[in-house]
């Protein structure tokens, strides 16, 4: 059941890393013919039914919201942190994780500083909790911020919790639950409906949404 080839070809933004292969699998199951493997290092791939552009996950919302890509795959956590204005028609279900407030086991000190790759969501959470703690943005391994004393707590993604256990860290609170979403540019959904609508339907059928 290939989506009918109608109108210009789609440009899809995919994140590097683990989600890349899962996204490819889902798109192929939905009927797209994509000649490409996840270990290919190219950033821009002419892959048959679509042109793929591959980037860091945090950049996917930017590429899609500005219309350089028609659609893409990215986590709900990343979408919320970006504040980008996108259509999010399908919850793909994979890459499920929690965005959590994490501390060292037994930490009691008042939280004065929080380190995170998600400064916007962290600040929103702290405001909601009535905390005046400051937020510092990090890009690398934020758990280190806790262990080294840079911050009293971190806000980060937890998938299995193994890393936390190894480093004697605990989840204190869950900010939100996330999973990979199929996101679509606001103009493309309407102007390339001939290609996107069948793809969305097929992806929804697959994810049981």
């Amino acid at each position, binding site marked *: 059941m290939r989506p009918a080839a109608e109108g210009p070809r789609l440009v899809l933004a995919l994140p590097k890393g683990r989600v890349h292969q899962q996204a490819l699998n889902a798109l192929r199951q939905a009927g797209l013919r994509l000649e490409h493997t996840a270990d290919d290092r190219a950033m821009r791939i002419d892959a048959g039914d679509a042109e793929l552009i591959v980037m860091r996950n945090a950049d996917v919302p930017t590429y899609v919201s500005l219309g350089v890509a028609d659609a893409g795959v990215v986590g709900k956590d990343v979408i919320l942190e970006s504040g980008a204005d996108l259509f*999010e028609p399908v919850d793909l279900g994979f890459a499920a994780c929690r965005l959590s407030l994490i501390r060292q086991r037994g930490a009691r000190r008042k939280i004065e500083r929080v380190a995170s790759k998600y400064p916007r969501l962290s600040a929103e959470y702290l405001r909601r909790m009535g905390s005046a703690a400051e937020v510092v943005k990090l890009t690398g391994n934020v758990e280190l911020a806790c262990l080294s004393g840079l911050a009293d707590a971190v806000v980060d993604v937890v998938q299995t919790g193994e890393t936390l256990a190894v480093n004697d860290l605990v989840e204190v609170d869950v900010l939100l639950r996330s999973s990979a979403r199929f996101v*679509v540019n606001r*103009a493309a959904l*309407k102007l390339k409906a001939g290609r996107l*609508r069948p793809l969305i339907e097929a992806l929804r059928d697959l994810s049981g949404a």
Partner: protein
Amino acid sequence: MKQGNGAPPDGTRFVTPESARLREAVTASLASLYDAWGYEPVEVPALERYDVTHPRAEQSFKLSDRDSGVLALRSDFTPALAQLVRAYHPAIADGERRALRYRYAGTVWHAIDPEFARTREFTQVGLELIGVSNARADAEVIHLARETVRAVGLVPRVELGNPGFVRALFDLAEVRTRDREALADAIDRKDRSDLRTLLAAAEVRGPAAEALLEATGLYGDAGVLREARRVAPWPETRAEIDRLEGVLDEFEDDSELLIDLGMARRLSYYTGVTFRAYTFDYGQPLLGGGRYDGALLPYAAGFSMGLERILGALPQVDTSTADTPQIDVSRADAPRADAPRAETRDGGTPDSGARAATGGLGARLLCSDDAVARRLREAGFRVLRATATDPSAVEDEAVAQDVGFVVHAGGLVDLASDGGGKRVASAPDHARVREALRAALEERA
């Protein structure tokens, strides 16, 4: 951060000559398009009294006045225009039904993080049709939105919505007020899985809740309306679908119009049909607007467009070899074939000679026939589209609009000499205008 190195503040920019010329040309072509439809220019102060109830209060730059009052930089034209109407046309601000057509162009400032290619200082161009509320008026504004995109040389696709549809479903499903914003946001993002979770959390169930889930898929061509009637078969929702269909019916050819019944932004502001314009190969809407009766004025509809946005959508021009902007402004000077109900698609280029010969009179007249109106605009007249259709009502409208002439499909009515007692202010060059009009009508017949 960037102080002292000559860079302007974040989210603002300098405009160098080649860009400034293009901006000037586009602004002039749009002014001339709106002028031909009888839209009068207005200006409003860039400094406003800060008002917490202003729709964009949270995004306004604030300044302190010397008397310790707080001022705000203009963040939107529509509220300021409503104030202008209240000051100069209090009867219309109180609900009198008389058409006012205003156009504007100017800078607005938004105190936001300059991200996603948004700037904090930009130029808004737009128009408002105030004092009328019917499908004809909606169609006029939507048609001009489409012509706006065409006037800068882009191919328009206009999409219509009606937030009343989602609002009616909320009422039918008895959704509590506090839950509506989050639900509307999920519908607007077409996020069916989030919506399902939110509906369950808000304890919203039943056929109307199912219809809300279906609303995330109610977009496409006019066939969507049929689907919407199946999904939401209740009188309350049918009325909202009918309202949208009524506007579509104003267009002879609606094949290029798109529909999205899941448009659910600013649910409490827009009260009727809303719309956005897109163009191919550009990822953002070029302009947006709609009907907002009762929000700021009893009856009003309009749209505004970011000038920088629409210029960003233009194909890149090699300015190194061209000393004049490569934009065809002649099309805007002479609006083309496809007025609502007059979608002739003859594709002929209007000869600018006729305009040059008879133009310059600047006469305003009222016309009830779109095909005739188009010819007269091409000939340089400013032609208001009658908001009524009954001939006698149209002549009353002409008196209210203070225009001396009415043109029906059948011919010219000169209100000063054969208007049957209907008095209008007669311009000093009334006779000359009448002759020019007769000539234009005969020549084009």
